[in-house]
């Protein structure tokens, strides 16, 4: 750049972010986006900076990452199938384990078809960009996850957002779509930033009445919301109305990968036309083996589900009583978002919690709605009641030290 000052630097568009980051670090706080876990002791504890830390920002909702059966299945697959597939699902990358995990998903959701992607991001990217094409319309919530937006951007459909969880705004937009155009409504069960759920029952009824197909991302509800842990659509009694459920292995399932389940009779053609499925290597055998074992165990996780809800209610009530501003009036999921006044104090609070021995997610724009800075807490079924009490005490001390609460 110095030798060629007249040429535009492609990185100059990042200057405002670089400056904001430098200003934040200059204030003396630790970089919230460069934390390293030196050792992970359990689904709820790790060593960070040499200190034992309670994990409250992992999405490891059901605590399956250290389940002995899950780990044994992974080790066996490593021994029997090797470390990786080195190939696409449509060429040399489909092993017995990939089929087995798709069978487990079909059983878990009670659906006819299941297709596994290498990440949850790719599942949304692939399905949305492939099924909604030129001349079709995608109607979606403005607070949708980045993978949904990127799926929209990658396809050729017209993209029409509506205000978060606003049933009437969604209906108006559906009714304005030209006659004969294909319509896809994209919703999430749990919105991961604030931890709130969608009124799926009402929204899906309107989508269907207006001739739209419905895709619901249940990434943050699988395993513990709904009588069988199938998600918010199941909980609200409308799962049979959902055309495509998108999910992930990187939260309740406890490994990595993404999927779509569907009853659409032509669904299998996706395996040939969906580029993020075709043009990437499939998941390693150990990963699909751990996922399949975990999914089958989640089918019988009623007790863990009950304890997770108890944890969520206790933490929500405790933080509220301390005077923190939370993302929802009542706990609606295993995510509790603590709203910070600004990025500077959010980062200071994050660091104070880390010193207390607690890890939470610092979330900030553009990932967050309305430019908010959030400390996002995600609970685990393996957090003990005592750990949750300890966490509330840590929030109290850190909040007072930073001046967030009185």
């Amino acid at each position, binding site marked *: 750049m110095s030798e060629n000052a007249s040429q535009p630097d492609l990185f100059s568009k990042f200057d405002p972010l670089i400056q904001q980051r430098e200003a934040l670090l200059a204030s003396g706080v630790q970089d919230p986006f460069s934390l390293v876990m030196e050792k992970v002791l359990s689904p709820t504890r790790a060593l960070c900076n040499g200190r034992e830390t309670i994990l409250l920002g992992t999405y490891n909702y059901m605590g399956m990452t250290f389940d002995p059966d899950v780990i044994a299945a992974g080790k066996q697959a490593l021994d029997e199938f090797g470390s990786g597939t080195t190939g696409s699902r449509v060429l040399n990358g489909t092993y017995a384990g990939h089929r087995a995990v798709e069978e487990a998903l079909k059983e878990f959701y009670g659906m006819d078809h299941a297709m596994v992607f290498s990440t949850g991001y790719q599942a949304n990217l692939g399905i949305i960009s492939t099924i909604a094409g030129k001349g079709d319309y995608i109607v979606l919530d*403005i607070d949708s996850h980045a993978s949904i937006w990127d799926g929209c951007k990658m396809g050729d459909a*017209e*993209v029409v*957002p509506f*205000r978060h969880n606003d049933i009437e705004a969604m209906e*108006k*937009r559906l009714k*304005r*779509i030209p006659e004969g155009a294909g319509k896809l409504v994209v919703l999430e069960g749990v919105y991961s930033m604030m931890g709130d759920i969608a009124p799926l029952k009402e929204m899906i009824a309107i989508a269907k009445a207006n001739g739209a197909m419905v895709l619901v991302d249940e990434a943050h509800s699988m395993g513990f919301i709904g009588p069988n842990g199938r998600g918010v659509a199941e909980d609200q009694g409308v799962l049979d109305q959902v055309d495509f459920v998108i999910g992930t292995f990187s939260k309740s399932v406890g490994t990595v990968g993404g999927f779509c389940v569907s009853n659409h009779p032509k669904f299998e053609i996706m395996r040939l036309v969906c580029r993020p499925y075709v043009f990437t290597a499939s998941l390693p055998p150990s990963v699909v083996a751990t996922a399949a074992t975990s999914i089958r165990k989640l089918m019988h996780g009623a007790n863990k589900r009950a304890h997770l809800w108890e944890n969520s209610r206790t933490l929500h009530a405790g933080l509220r009583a301390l005077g923190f501003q939370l993302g929802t009036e009542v706990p609606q999921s295993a995510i509790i978002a603590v709203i910070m006044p600004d990025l500077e104090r959010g980062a200071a609070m994050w660091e104070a919690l880390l010193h207390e021995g607690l890890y939470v997610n610092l979330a900030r724009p553009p990932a967050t709605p309305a430019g908010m800075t959030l400390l996002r807490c995600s609970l685990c079924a393996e957090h003990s009641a005592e750990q949750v009490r300890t966490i509330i005490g840590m929030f109290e001390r850190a909040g007072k030290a930073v001046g967030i609460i009185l």
Partner: protein
Amino acid sequence: MDRAQTDARIRGIIEPFNKKGIEISDGATFAGDFEFDSLTVMDFVAAIEDEFDIIISMNQQAEIENFGQLVDAVCKLQRD
């Protein structure tokens, strides 16, 4: 509705969003002059859509940078 009528109605809608009191001309840009952030854009677009009973998709929004282009787009969408 002709262009002048559409223009006048959009001027009425933009008023509460025009917090800095920027003078409205065809060349006034939403990002640069009005300094709309993404949330304001969504609310403003929703208000226009409701007023004229049209859809301005994100794809179409990407082509609209200034006030004059918006008036032209709304005129066209009403004809379609």
